[in-house]
């Protein structure tokens, strides 16, 4: 079995759309949480970090199952009608990528020079501006958090399969297509799709690297 070029493009485009959207949402939510955890001392911070680090190790099929139960017709969010749509995959991927963005951002700012935060505070900055100052100085490590989150989302197959259903022309992503081709014994197609996936990852990571380098004085 081969796939028409148009269908490969369609699958690759959906994978990219899901991965970029899920990474953007997860990082928009996760990085501020990480900055807060990394720069603010409060009771329970260590427990919070421990929980985040534990979530990093949760199997993707477990997250897929949890989202399935939430979004299925009889689930609490069943009314949204998201089940077996690409949006359901985005929701699952956000849940998977959020702990990565938050935990790695917290680690990045904790590893940053402690003088950055003190300097910002003593120059009159509030907590948000001071956290932003730390983020700016630690942007390479934060960029790494974005790259890891994107990699996790782009390469994920278990949750996408469970909540998306791998429906042709609707929810088939590169990873679910590779899984299907492999199960059908079509290794040539599986390898070809895998190479497309790698090319996508390379392109996006190169773009992130370029963005990190800009503005460096």
């Amino acid at each position, binding site marked *: 079995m081969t796939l028409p070029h148009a269908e490969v493009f369609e699958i690759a485009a959906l994978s990219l759309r899901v991965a970029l959207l899920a990474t953007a949402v997860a990082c928009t939510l996760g990085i501020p949480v990480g900055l807060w955890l990394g720069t603010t001392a409060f009771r329970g911070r260590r427990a919070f970090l421990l929980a985040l680090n534990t979530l990093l190790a949760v199997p993707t099929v477990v997250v897929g199952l949890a989202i399935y139960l939430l979004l299925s017709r009889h689930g609490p969010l069943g009314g949204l009608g998201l089940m077996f749509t690409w949006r359901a995959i985005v929701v699952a991927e956000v849940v998977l990528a959020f702990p990565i963005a938050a935990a790695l951002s917290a680690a990045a700012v904790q590893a940053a020079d402690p003088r*950055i935060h003190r300097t910002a*505070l*003593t*120059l009159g900055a509030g*907590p948000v501006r001071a956290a932003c100052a730390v983020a700016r100085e630690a942007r390479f490590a934060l960029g790494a958090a974005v790259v890891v989150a994107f990699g996790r989302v782009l390469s994920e197959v278990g949750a996408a399969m469970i909540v998306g259903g791998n429906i042709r022309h609707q929810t088939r992503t590169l990873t679910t297509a590779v899984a299907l081709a492999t199960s059908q014994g079509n290794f040539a197609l599986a390898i070809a799709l895998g190479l497309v996936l790698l090319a996508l990852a390379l392109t996006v990571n190169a773009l992130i690297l370029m963005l990190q380098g800009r503005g*460096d004085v």
Partner: protein
Amino acid sequence: MFELALVRQTYGGRPVLAVDALRIERDARLAIVGPNGSGKSTLLRLLAFLEAPGAGTIALDGRPVRTARERRRARTRVTLVEQRPFLFRGTVLENVAWGLGARGVPAAQARARALEALSLLGSDRLAGRSARALSEGEVQRIAVARALATEPDALLLDEPVAGADRAAQHALYAGIAAAQARRPMAVCVASHLLEDAYRWADRILALHEGAPSTVTPENLFRVELPGGGPLQTVHLGPLAVDLVTDRAGPATLAIPPDEIVLSTERLHSSARNAMPGRIVRVAEQGGAVRVTVDGGIELVALITRRSLDELGLTVGGAVYASFKSVAVRVF
């Protein structure tokens, strides 16, 4: 400006600072002196409201600063320049304008004020340079300019001349004095360079093991006391010093500068300790003169200007520094 009452600070259960009472006026020039680990930097961080004291209160203009919100508000009036200051990524001018940006000052106004602060410290030529391309001394000057640009009510400096040569030290203190002449500002400097502190400050706070000390922390030496009697002898470099104590083991010796007698010949007196040496520095302090004598170790003696003139003491001249055993304080 600042009033401290029964302030205590501990790190990991270890007491590092204990100040029962301290008042710093709005126009003060306070030098905080003491050996490493005496609590100078901790006191500055507390005065900068970067951390809360473990116990006691710090009041700013009569109002106790207790909550995180109050500390945050207080930090817009007080700023600290650390011993190894951090400059943000960007140009020198962006750095100096940073605190103004944090206060919502419009960019053009912030730029003008930043340039003014830079020129106070004679560093305006560095404005366009990258902050990462500066020498250690320049970093310190830029950090002080950045603090001055915010027009603080109190400027706190931790070892501000540590990496600077003589000329740079002079420029730094001159710039701070000029800023202080423009508007009232309390300036507190933690320094181990006592000569500078004495020359510049109008008040000295000596810290020893976290607490204010009545002894000026000059002529301080870490020693191992042999024990075994009230009259003991310890060696400070080539100098054997007799002192009176019952203690044994590690201790700090302090020889108060006003207990040291200078003479051009060895004295026949009750002073058991006498060190021959040469004068390496002479500095005015108010009506008195601080004379540093190098005889293998450096000892600072405080004498009157008249004594200096009558004995004909000058830098490079040979001199004896004598002090009694009972003048040596043991901590």
